[in-house]
């Protein structure tokens, strides 16, 4: 479990592409605040229907992205933490009169059923690798290898097959 937690921590905190300097969505913030603004904006989904992360919605005067970005700006200026900002958007922020809830987040959580989203692809990857290694071992036990077959052949046959294999390698 500790290993799983560590792997998840590394995965979730890796700065996956895209990384960017500056922001096309704020003029109030500067320096490290902009990096923080981008970081938080990556965690939220614009609600206008574009289904893009807040950083990416390109609609001019977007009815969702513009107020959401303003709220993030003001909360950053109030020195709120990332968790506080995200929590506010999940529990209090309304769009078209409704609290958005967890649908405002751009990625699954690392708790409860959401954890399955993160774990399954990598678990499957490990299982596949295990299956491939198992299959390799099984095949090499059951079937004689080409080298073993070659030993049983006459020198002429061996020479011919080696030449054909060389030809195949060069193709």
């Amino acid at each position: 479990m500790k290993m799983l937690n560590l792997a998840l921590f590394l995965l979730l905190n890796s700065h996956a592409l895209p990384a960017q300097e500056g922001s096309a969505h704020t003029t109030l913030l500067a320096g490290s605040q902009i990096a923080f603004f981008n970081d938080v904006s990556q965690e939220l989904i614009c609600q206008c229907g574009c289904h893009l992360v807040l950083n990416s919605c390109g609609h001019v005067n977007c009815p969702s992205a513009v107020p959401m970005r303003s709220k993030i700006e003001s909360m950053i200026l109030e020195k709120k933490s990332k968790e506080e900002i995200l929590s506010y958007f999940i529990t209090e922020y309304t769009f078209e009169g409704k609290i958005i809830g967890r649908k405002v987040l751009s990625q699954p959580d690392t708790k409860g059923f959401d954890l399955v989203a993160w774990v399954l692809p990598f678990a499957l990857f490990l299982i596949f690798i295990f299956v491939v290694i198992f299959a390799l071992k099984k095949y090499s036990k059951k079937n004689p290898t080409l080298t073993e077959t070659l030993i049983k052949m006459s020198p002429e046959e061996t020479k011919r097959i080696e030449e054909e294999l060389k030809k195949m390698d060069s193709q």
Partner: protein
Amino acid sequence: MTHLGNFALILAFSLSIYAAIASLIGAREKRVQLIVSAHRAVYMVFASVLLAVGCLVYLLLISDMNVEYVASFSNKTLPIFFKFTFWSGQAGSLLLWSFILAAYAAAVTFRYRNHHTQLIPYVIMTVMITQAFFLALNLWSANPFNELITQLPDGSTQPFTAADGRGLNPLLQHPAMIIHPPTLFVGYVGFAIPFAFAMGALLSGQLGDEWIKLSRRWTLFAWLFQSAGLMMGGWWAYEELGWGGYWAWDPVENASLMPWLTATAFLHSVIIQEKKNMFKFWNMTLIMATYFLCIFGTFLTRSGVVSSVHAFAEGSIGIFFMSFIILGMTLSAMALWHRRGSLKSENSLDSPVSRESSFLFNNLVLLISCFAVFWGTIFPVISEAVTGEKIVVGAPFFNKVNIPIAMILLFLTGVGPLLAWRKTSFDTLKKVLLLPSLISVIGGILIAIFLTTHFYGLVSFTLCIFVTAAILIEFYKGARSRMKSQAENFLVAIKNLTWKNKRRYGGYIVHLAIVIIFCGITGQVFNYETKTDIAAGEFHVVKGYKIVCKNIGFETTDNYDSQFAELEVFRNDSRVASLRPEYRMYKASQQPTTEVALYKTPLEDLYVVFAGLDDSGKRLTLQIFVNPLVSWVWVGTVVLVLGTIICLLPGLQEDRMEIARKKETVNENA
């Protein structure tokens, strides 16, 4: 004209059913006349679907506002250029599917009309079943020829003519949208052909290499168009959506990527079947997965099951798709299981370190990547079913899961071709890996010192150097060998090397293209963006570019009203570009769009978005992005297309076989 269109669809549907049945009976009872009749029916299906397409285009061109589809996706002032894009809505895009599939079916039928008489009828049957399914959708779920009707107070209905149409979605009014959907569809639909060959092999019992050899070019052709279509979609998103990027992991982008990934795995693993008679069962599974992912992708787009900017409409169409997918998968799996005994490998893997094993690992990584995309795409639906709460799985999830997988894939792209078939000893491995590893380590250190220490950025660039070095060394070795044996100069040797072994060296060029595209994608780690307010006569400096606002203007056309800025861009005091970012409000749809202004160089793009005017109309807000290496993505795509075309060209040996086959046929006929 709507009656003629409907008649053409009904005729095409009936003929496709007939062609499928006639092919099946003809093949089982060896009745040549029935098979020939099925061939004619296939040609007639193509002619009928072409007629239906012609009718729809005609209705769009004359802006017949009696027709629901025309009124929904066109308007009278829409530029004629866009009126030909009959695939803008759900019904039209399904008709495009049918049209392309009918064209493929006719081409396959014509190409093999006198050959492979046991296999081809089953191939035609499979294609025609798919054809009938899509035509049925057009007839009963999304008919482009439905007329507008209005309900009267007494409950009766009467035809209705709209004053004008709602117009084409402004985001689709872009040159890329003219060619992106047909290109992508040629790829998407094209995978039905290798699938049909696989089913043909299973149903006819012709389970040797024949189906692989016959379908190889069709698969490559489809893969080529799928790749180009995917990238064109990215180009459209980059130039039209105005957010500075080209890939957002939208469900429909994912739907196109998934079959591409499995098809890429298939293209690699069929080489093993051809060379070593292995992976027969696996190859069948891969092409089935590719085909059903294509249908699933179309289902995702049309059903609205997972929300997307591409989703056309929700409705009954989803149930048709799900039924077809479930039934198709069940029948295919049954056929595969029935023939499992004949699909056993005739050889085994000699060593985990060999070309065969590297292909196996490459397949594994591609499939995991495909699964990760699939899983992320459908997870909101699964989450809702399990927890009752629908969540969103956006770009950050896909980036975090897929980037590590992509790094492994990139590594395998470099290592795979260096390994020998059968077995590579540790000494040989050391020998072949030494130089590319050394070059990439030195390159990586230089990148870390001078460019970036961003983890994935550094890993990606280092691996790109590794793969490039590995490929170039392969070319160099081959050329050097020819220079010695054939006394050719280096360039002639490279040309002849590629020409005489198109599959191998064409494949290397495709790998090189993938590296170029990876470099372009990795360029995102240097992205810079800013927002500024500016008035005419003022300037703003961004990353060495001085952007001077010369004028802010307004324009009205029949189609839209526009606000624009005239900008001049200076670099080192020299004027390098004039840019005109625009904000448009389309009249018919009352939808706004931004028209991005771009200054492209090989190393970076200056990307300027008109983000709004203040109340006085004199100060405008600009969003400015400096996006390094984006051109590499497009250049890489062109190289990929060229490499694939080289792979598609017939080889000398194949030419000889083809001539021999033709001679044989002539002799038989004589």
